[in-house]
């Protein structure tokens, strides 16, 4: 099986730069976990694109290594916060006991 550093090199060759070293998945043989930061260019396109990510993962799968990607997507996280705020504003009574109380108690 490829080492974490080798997996990182393979990913970088395919244009992906994960956050930190790939980690061997203790629950699955020949499997790595990677953290990938997703940003957006000025036209709103995801960087790296899903296609580029899929190609890199397929490339490693062909070498017998499965890769699970944990996406760090700031836009999605901002959207979650926006939806929570919208729900809290529209349905304060019903949301009070769930989203808002969780946020406040954090």
């Amino acid at each position, binding site marked *: 099986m490829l080492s974490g550093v080798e997996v990182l090199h393979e990913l970088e060759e395919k244009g992906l730069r994960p956050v930190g070293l790939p980690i061997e998945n203790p629950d*699955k043989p020949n499997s790595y976990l990677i*953290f990938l*930061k997703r940003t957006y260019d000025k036209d709103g396109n995801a960087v790296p694109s899903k296609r580029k990510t899929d190609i890199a993962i397929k490339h490693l799968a062909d070498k017998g290594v499965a890769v*699970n990607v944990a996406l760090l997507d700031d836009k999605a996280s901002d959207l979650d916060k926006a939806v929570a705020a919208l729900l809290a504003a529209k349905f304060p009574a019903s949301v009070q006991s769930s989203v808002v109380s969780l946020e406040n108690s954090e």
Partner: protein
Amino acid sequence: MAISEDMHRVAHHLQKTAVAAAVNERDSYARSCYNRYYYSVFLQCREMLSDMDSSWSRMPHASYPDLLGGKVRRAFRTERIRASKSGDKDLVKLIDRACRSIAELQKIIVTANSTRVVADYEPEEKVDFVVADRFSLRSINVTEAHGWTISVQTHCRTILNVWRQSNA
């Protein structure tokens, strides 16, 4: 849901303890907090899958994303075709929503599990205490981890609702 809620409360307690702890102790509390937030996610998913098919409750947790994206999504696709043919627009909409929930749930499971693995198996990678009451591990902010429970709860309800309607 009760056990996963307890797990979430324990995680949150560990989160607050980590922030208040001495510098030499806070890393350990913070790691444990990510671990418990993951287990809250896992327990909710297991409960949902067990309700869908009792044999699925014994499946290893690493297989959950594939199970959701495979058997569950295929069952929804088949049901969508049936609902579409019979003109049940409401059910088609519900199935589309449930498919989106599957995708979101898969993402959360993979992210939560990956963070848990870093927390448990990579002790040399320290938790980053960025600001006074917030920290992150491998760029996963604790605020995001805190939000997993309620997101998973919502997605599981959506998926289970469609599953029950499809199998009624």
